[in-house]
C-alpha cells in the first residue's frame, strides 16, 4: 500500500490531477488513519471530526510536501498532531468540570454506542487512559498496530530508544493496573 500511496505524489502536486489523486489517497488511507485517531480520541464522532480536519490539512499543504519523508508517514504525523490538539482543546474546555478529563473520556467511551468491548477490554482501555497522551499513543501504535519503532520514530519525531523506553514503561503500568 505504501508504494501505491507514494506513486500518487506527482499527481497530488499537479493541480489538474490533484482532485482525483486525493480521492484515491483517501481511499487508500482512510481506514488506517481513522483507527489511529480513534485510539487516541476514543469516541467515534470525535474521530470523524479529527479525520476530516486531517484530510483538509493534507489537502491544503500537499503542494508544499517536500518528500523528506514518506507521504503516508507525513499524513500519520498530521493525524497525530490533530488528535493531540483536539484532546488539548477538550481538556481546556473541561477545566471547570467536576470530573477529570480522563474519567470523562472513559464515561464518553462507555456511553458511545460504537464501543463494543467486554469487561476486560473496558478495564484495558481504562488502564490505557491512565497513560500520558504521548505514551498512550506510543503504546497504541506498538501494541495494536504492531508498528516498527523506526516508523514510529519518523511519525512522532522521537528517538527509537526513547520510544522503546516509553513503551516498556507503558506496558508495566498497564499490567499493574489490570492485575490490580
Amino acid at each position, binding site marked *: 500500500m505504501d508504494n501505491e500511496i507514494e506513486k500518487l505524489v506527482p499527481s497530488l502536486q499537479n493541480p489538474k490531477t490533484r482532485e482525483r489523486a486525493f*480521492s484515491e489517497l483517501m481511499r487508500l488511507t482512510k481506514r488506517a488513519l481513522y*483507527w489511529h485517531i480513534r*485510539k487516541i480520541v*476514543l469516541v*467515534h464522532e470525535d474521530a*470523524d471530526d479529527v479525520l476530516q480536519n486531517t484530510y483538509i490539512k493534507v489537502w491544503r499543504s500537499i503542494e508544499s510536501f517536500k518528500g523528506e519523508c514518506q507521504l503516508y508517514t507525513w499524513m500519520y504525523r498530521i493525524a497525530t498532531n490533530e488528535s493531540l490538539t483536539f484532546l488539548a482543546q477538550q481538556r481546556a474546555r473541561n477545566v471547570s468540570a467536576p470530573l477529570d478529563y480522563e474519567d470523562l473520556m472513559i464515561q464518553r467511551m462507555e456511553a458511545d454506542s*460504537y464501543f463494543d468491548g467486554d469487561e476486560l477490554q*473496558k478495564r484495558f482501555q481504562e488502564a490505557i487512559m491512565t497513560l500520558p497522551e504521548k505514551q498512550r499513543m506510543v503504546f497504541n501504535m506498538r501494541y495494536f498496530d504492531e508498528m516498527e519503532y523506526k516508523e514510529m520514530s519518523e511519525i512522532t519525531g522521537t528517538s527509537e530508544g526513547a520510544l522503546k523506553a516509553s513503551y516498556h514503561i507503558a506496558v508495566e503500568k498497564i499490567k499493574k493496573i489490570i492485575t490490580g
Partner: protein
Amino acid sequence: MIKLLVIHCVKNAKIQEMETELENVNRKLPFETPDGYFDGFEEKMMNRIHAEEVSAERHHVEQLNSHRHRVLRLAISGVAAVALLVIGIYTVIGYQNSVNAQAEQIIAATSDEDAYYDEVNDALDTEEIEEALAQLNFYE
C-alpha cells in the same frame, strides 16, 4: 539464599501472570464504526473541501474588501484633515488680514485727526490762543 530464590521465583511467576493477562486482552480494538461509515467518505470529504475552499475564497474577498474600505476611509479622513487644516489656515490668515486692515484704518483715521489739529493749531496764532484762554479765565 533459599529465601532470595523463592522471592525470585514468585516475582517471575507474577510477571508471567501479568504478561499472560495482557496477552489475553484481545488485540482487536473494542470499537466499531456506524454501518457504511467509510462508504462514500471520499465524496463527502471532497464536497467539504470544495465548501471550505468557497468559504475561504469568500473570506479572502471579504478581507480584501474590508482592507480596501479601510484604505478608502483612511484616505478620506486624510483628505478631510488636510482640507480642514487649509480652511483653518485661510481663516486665520483672513482674520489676521482683516485685523491689519482695521488697524491701518484706525491709524489712518488717527493720522487724519492729528493733521486736523495741526492745521487748526497752525491757523491760530499765539495771541489768539492766549486771548481765548484769557476768556476762559485760564490765567486767573
